[in-house]
């Protein structure tokens, strides 16, 4: 096959394409990431404008939506004025544009323009002829366990398998002969097929983009699987190139069937060429207007937060020894529970840190042949921790088993167990309980199992992973953990390390509910492992030699907070000393009280729960949601997230943040070089930023960047969800997860000197990119003077809040009962929680 034209390079086109396709992993590994990561090398507004013009994504709210927010007072006029003035635009003219001028928001994106000519010139709806059979075949090939009779030849790679089937079968996937011959005799290449279909080699790349972006979900998952074959349990060999080839074959098949073998390629019919995809885009005035609105919307909130951070902390520095210390994940869902725990026991201290607690490893449950990664996605651990003596077994449920789909077994089942289903139906509606259809974080690891944490003799497992950690390795991790959060003196007798997970029923996106820092798994094993390390006498010895002296009487307790049920579980209590055990019993009561109050605060977002009821009753209802099949919102996850605060607890202890903030503990005074800060920001930018932007884009364009409503979703091969049976895979978050989310970028506020922060972020180019290009906003607060600096165009610029005073609140319970909506920032004044349980 001779090369037609040097302008078209298969390899380069495929790389480009993969760059722009959605990068979402199969459902079991749902990990939040920036949906528009492909545009991250441009600044935020430039990048999203390109995405908008080229791919037709909605990247901001509509002008009407912003105007409505403005009318409702959710966009502050003073902030808006300041933003227009900072851009040196004439204020009144632009304000009129923003507030009054009508704009036509009708736009046609570039993607799809070329292939639209099939319909206009050939009167053929190619996609409706090709997509159903294409999706069906790839879906069956990639299937992870829905079908009973699997794709017969899947081990040879995608095209080879199809060829094998075609060669040895009396029937065919194709309707015509030409393409079948191509496939069987292998006398084709991607380019030769493009020549038949498109003709003009200048259009090949654009054609492939058009074609693949007609079903970005399937193309995206194939690109993910090609790059990372271990993403599937039942691994499948497939490449994006094979998909494109097969789709071209099907297109030729459809065209041959319609026109016979003589038809001219698309490129030769065109009179005018459609606009090329990647020529530079212009910023339309309507988009410019929306960008200003967006900034004003963001800074209306950020301004309050920054003002709040300037308020002097009323709570006196801890004078006496803390009763206990508790480490939580930085997750925004832990923001309020910490407030309630501190309220229950004013002498305690809480900390926030990435929820894998600085121990990175694979976890291998008892009886399993697979490991699951429990640390941030970019980290590749060298360790495995095995679970032994797990006594619990998963229940089976015939509704999911293959017998229910057999002919004769089905006949017997419908006559017998069919009536059992009726009872189950009845119970599912009137008395929901935990069953085989539910997922609960407590099942991740058996509470009573034993973990292989310590490596004595360098044991390695069959894949070369070290089983457990050596003493030295343990000490390094415990030291790193404690130093990064500034917990180096004043150890309380009990230090809780609390991971988090979630429970839900009938939820395809369950993996997105657990801990982001543990690759979408519950953080229970990590909490237990690091506590074991911290309690190890030899580890303590090493720590002591490094100047970190933890009293012998101090003990660590691992545990887990279930964020949807608001329940806690504690591990390995038998190692506690008598006095610590007694103390723990007292603490556990405080935790319980805090959990109940927390459930009540969460419930204000659930319209169907009356938040004015007593907290105890509400807690019961909240728990019921997690086992109810009919509840699409067991919890609201990261919805409304907007902030990440990196600093001491007192930095933000006296402001009410409405569960909107990631909180990472950090003591600037112990880190003048910014070493720990770098580690923290290396995680905060991609993890919290990724979560934030996934929520952002799923919210502004739930149809293309989000998964739409989950109610009609159908599970495709355990890989993903689609609407109906012959749709494209839907990526992003379902509407139920984002409907209460305000699309704001993340504001990271660091309590440190701006000069140190600047030097620190510049040390890691990939972290720096997030801030430099404004995909995450950054501010620094001088810890001594409380002066605020906002990072903009690679400099820290002083910022003076528009808000001069913030409202104060003393009755938090009243406040949370008052509305379902987002609350502004309040100063907590002698906070009286007044919760009656």
């Amino acid at each position: 096959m001779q090369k037609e034209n040097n302008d078209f390079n298969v390899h380069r086109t495929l790389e480009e394409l993969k760059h722009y396709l959605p990068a979402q992993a199969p459902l079991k590994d749902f990990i939040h990431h920036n949906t528009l990561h492909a545009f991250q090398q441009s600044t935020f507004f430039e990048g999203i404008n390109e995405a908008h013009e080229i791919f037709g994504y909605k990247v901001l709210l509509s002008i009407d939506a912003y105007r409505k927010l403005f009318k409702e007072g959710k966009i502050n006029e003073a902030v808006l004025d300041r933003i227009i003035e900072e851009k040196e635009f004439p204020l009144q003219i632009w304000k009129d544009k923003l507030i009054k001028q009508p704009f036509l928001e009708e736009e046609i994106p570039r993607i799809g323009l070329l292939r639209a000519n099939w319909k206009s010139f050939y009167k053929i709806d190619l996609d409706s002829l090709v997509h159903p059979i294409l999706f069906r075949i790839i879906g069956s090939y990639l299937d992870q366990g829905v079908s009973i009779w699997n794709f017969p030849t899947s081990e040879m790679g995608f095209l080879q398998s199809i060829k094998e089937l075609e060669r040895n079968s009396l029937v065919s996937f194709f309707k015509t002969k030409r393409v079948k011959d191509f496939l069987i005799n292998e006398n084709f290449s991607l380019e030769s097929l493009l020549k038949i279909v498109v003709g003009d080699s200048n259009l090949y790349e654009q054609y492939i983009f058009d074609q693949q972006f007609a079903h970005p979900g399937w193309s995206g998952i194939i690109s993910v699987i090609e790059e990372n074959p271990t993403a599937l349990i039942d691994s499948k060999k497939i490449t994006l190139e094979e998909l494109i080839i097969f789709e071209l074959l099907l297109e030729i098949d459809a065209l041959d069937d319609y026109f016979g073998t003589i038809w001219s390629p698309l490129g030769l019919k065109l009179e005018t060429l459609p606009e090329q995809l990647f020529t530079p885009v212009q910023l339309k005035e309507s988009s410019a207007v929306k960008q200003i609105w967006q900034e004003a919307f963001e800074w209306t909130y950020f301004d309050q937060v920054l003002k709040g951070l300037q308020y002097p902390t009323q709570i006196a520095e801890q004078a006496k020894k803390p009763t206990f210390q508790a480490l939580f994940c930085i997750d925004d869902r832990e923001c309020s529970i910490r407030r309630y725990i501190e309220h229950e026991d004013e002498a305690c201290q809480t900390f926030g840190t990435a929820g894998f607690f600085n121990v990175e490893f694979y976890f291998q449950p008892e009886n399993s042949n697979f490991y699951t990664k429990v640390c941030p996605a970019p980290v590749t651990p060298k360790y495995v921790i095995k679970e032994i003596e797990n006594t619990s077994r998963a229940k089976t449920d015939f509704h999911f088993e293959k017998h229910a789909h057999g002919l004769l077994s089905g006949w017997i089942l419908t006559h017998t167990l069919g009536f059992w289903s009726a009872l189950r139906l009845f119970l599912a509606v009137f008395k929901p309980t935990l069953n085989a259809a539910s997922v609960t974080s407590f099942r991740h690891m058996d509470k009573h199992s034993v973990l292989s944490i310590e490596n004595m003799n360098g044991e390695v497992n069959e894949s070369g992973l070290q089983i457990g950690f050596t003493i030295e390795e343990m000490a390094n991790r415990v030291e790193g953990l404690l130093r990064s959060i500034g917990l180096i003196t004043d150890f309380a007798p009990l230090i809780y390390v609390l991971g988090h997970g979630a429970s839900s029923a009938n939820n395809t996106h369950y993996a997105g509910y657990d801990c982001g820092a543990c690759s979408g798994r519950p953080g229970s094993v990590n909490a237990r492992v690091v506590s074991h390390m911290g309690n190890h006498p030899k580890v303590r010895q090493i720590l002591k030699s490094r100047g970190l002296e933890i009293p012998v009487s101090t003990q660590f307790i691992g545990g887990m907070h279930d964020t949807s049920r608001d329940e806690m579980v504690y591990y390995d209590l038998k190692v506690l000393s008598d006095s610590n055990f007694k103390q723990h019993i007292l603490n556990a009561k405080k935790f319980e009280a805090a959990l109940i109050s927390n459930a009540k605060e969460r419930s204000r977002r659930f319209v169907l729960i009356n938040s004015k009821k007593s907290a105890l009753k509400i807690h019961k209802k909240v728990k019921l949601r997690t086992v109810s099949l009919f509840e699409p919102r067991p919890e609201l996850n990261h919805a409304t997230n907007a902030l990440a605060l990196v600093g001491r607890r007192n930095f933000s202890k006296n402001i009410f943040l409405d569960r909107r903030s990631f909180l990472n503990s950090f003591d600037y005074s112990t880190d003048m070089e910014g070493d720990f800060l770098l580690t923290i920001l290396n995680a905060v930018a991609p993890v919290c930023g990724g979560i934030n932007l996934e929520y952002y884009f799923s919210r502004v364009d739930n149809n293309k960047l989000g998964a739409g409503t989950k109610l009609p979703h159908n599970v495709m091969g355990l890989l993903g969800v689609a609407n109906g049976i012959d749709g494209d895979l839907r990526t992003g978050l379902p509407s139920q997860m984002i409907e209460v989310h305000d699309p704001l970028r993340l504001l990271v506020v660091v309590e440190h000197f701006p000069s140190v922060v600047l030097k620190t972020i510049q040390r890691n180019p990939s972290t720096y990119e997030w801030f430099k290009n404004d995909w995450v906003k950054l501010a620094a607060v001088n810890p001594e003077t409380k002066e605020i600096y906002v990072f903009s165009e690679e400099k820290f610029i002083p910022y003076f809040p528009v808000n001069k005073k913030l409202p104060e609140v003393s009755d938090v319970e009243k406040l949370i009962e008052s509305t379902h909506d987002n609350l502004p920032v309040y100063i907590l004044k002698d906070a009286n929680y007044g919760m009656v349980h």
Partner: protein
Amino acid sequence: MEWFINVFIVLPLIGFLVSLIIPKRKENLLSRISFTTVGIQLFAAVGFISFWVFNNAKVINVKEFSIFKAKDYDFYVDFYFDRITATYLLLGAILTFIITIYSRYYLHREEGYKRFFNVILFFYLGFNIVIFSGNLETMFIGWEILGISSFMLIAFYRDRYLPVKNAVKVFSIYRIGDVGVILAMWLSHHLWHENISFYKLGNYELVHEHLANHSMIGFVISIMIFISAAAKSAQFPFCSWLPRAMEGPTPSSAIFYGSLSVHIGVFLMMRTYHFWEHQISFRIFVGSIGLITSLTATFSARVQATVKSQIAYSSIAQIGLIFIEIALGLETIALVHVAGNAFLRTYQLLVSPSVVSYKIREQFYNYIPRRKTIEDSWPKRLEYSLYIMSLKEWNLDTFMYKNLWNPLKRFGSKLSFLTFKNVFVLFAVVFISGIILAYNPKLVNPTWKFYLPLIYGLLGLVMVIKAFTERASVRLSWSLIITNHLSIALAISFNEHFDFSHHIWYLSGVLVSGIVGYLCIQRLRKLEKWVSLDQFYGHIQEHPKIALVFLIACLGVAGFPITPTFIGEDLIFSHVHENQVLLAAFIALSLIINGLAAIRIYARIFLGPASKNKIGAAKRSA
């Protein structure tokens, strides 16, 4: 006791009507109305059935009232109650009750909350009319309601492309089923010389006596009934619509396509059992189709990689077995089977999202790579061929296109010379000359007399085919639907002399709906400079009111039981003689296509993604 049957029809009707007037935002009230309605129905059903069983479970037949009466013709509403009705009544009430409560939370905050409950109640009304019906005419009222509510629920997410496309597809299959019933009604009218009730079918002597002389008509009636039943219950060759109907919210798929709607074909077969039980060849036919269905559907189920289509095919396979049971006369087993299958599939569909966590967990612990199945032991050629066929659903989805819609489209494209204006002129000439001929029979010589009805019938058919395949002009398509009805009326006029009032019954609804629909189109053309049929335009998003009025107009011209046309259609048919098979075929085909053409116009202009603004709309493949 007999009067109590009315409660089971009136209650859902009231619930439905009340739900229509409740404001959209009152979620709580809407769901309350729904589950209270169905809850009372369930309670009443349990009470009634207990009472009925206690009183020896005698079959009840109530002739309610006549809607239209003429010589030899009596369109009357009739209710019937036996153990088949009792089973379906309980099944329907239990499942609908559970689903309404389930959906109360599940649909919270969903855009179409009100529409969902409206349609569920409407469906439930139709379901009850069907199961209580005492004759084909009454059943047909419910039958049409089921069809249209199915359409509305599949197209629930009407701003996306696939739900709308699949809704139209499913509706087209249902339409074939509808015509099966119409033809069965026509033939039974000739067979019995009256509108026979199901009750009388239970009379062996009567049935036997009539069938003895007309065994051919009897067989054809049975086939027509079977086509309707097979279409509704997704039997071979109509299997492929069922998985494609799974586009609405999961609970609606569960109740419609997992349980109630899909078992209605079975109901029809059981209800008419006494009519065909002595036609051995027919029973063999039913059993064989059941067998073919269960085998093909089982293989299709085995290869499905999506949860809902797998459940759909498993359910079809079981219904195939139920057809065999009915053919064997095992009514009790069939009834138990229906209930078990309905409960099982409903629950399976409801928990279908859980399959991910369940199976992933299972694999995590007991993963066996490439599990062997029975097919692996077969010769490669057989295994691969069977796999490909199963994956392609035995080509059944393309079957209808290849053999019915595509030929029609090709034919329609040959009629491109027809435009709005020349159709008007052409039709005026033909129609006026037709009227002159019809009312001056002396002008017509006897040979013509035989051909004229056929010519006008054919003319009507050609018009409606053009209406169905028209890609540009909405007005043209719409007017052709109306002229199709006029041509049919004229064709029948040549056939025999009958009272002019029959025409009025038939045409009044068509004309009123036709004018209303035409005004809607004109209004829309004014507001939106451009209205065409070449794609889905999604205008319902901006003009929901016009869309609603137009939908009602479409139902009117399609002979839906809201206008006299519904009875008129049946009435007109009664004037087609039993030997005029060709004329009956023309008219039947016309009726299938004109209903479809009307719904197609509605779908194309009002449903689907908004054409104006692609930004913010879902991808076509989504």
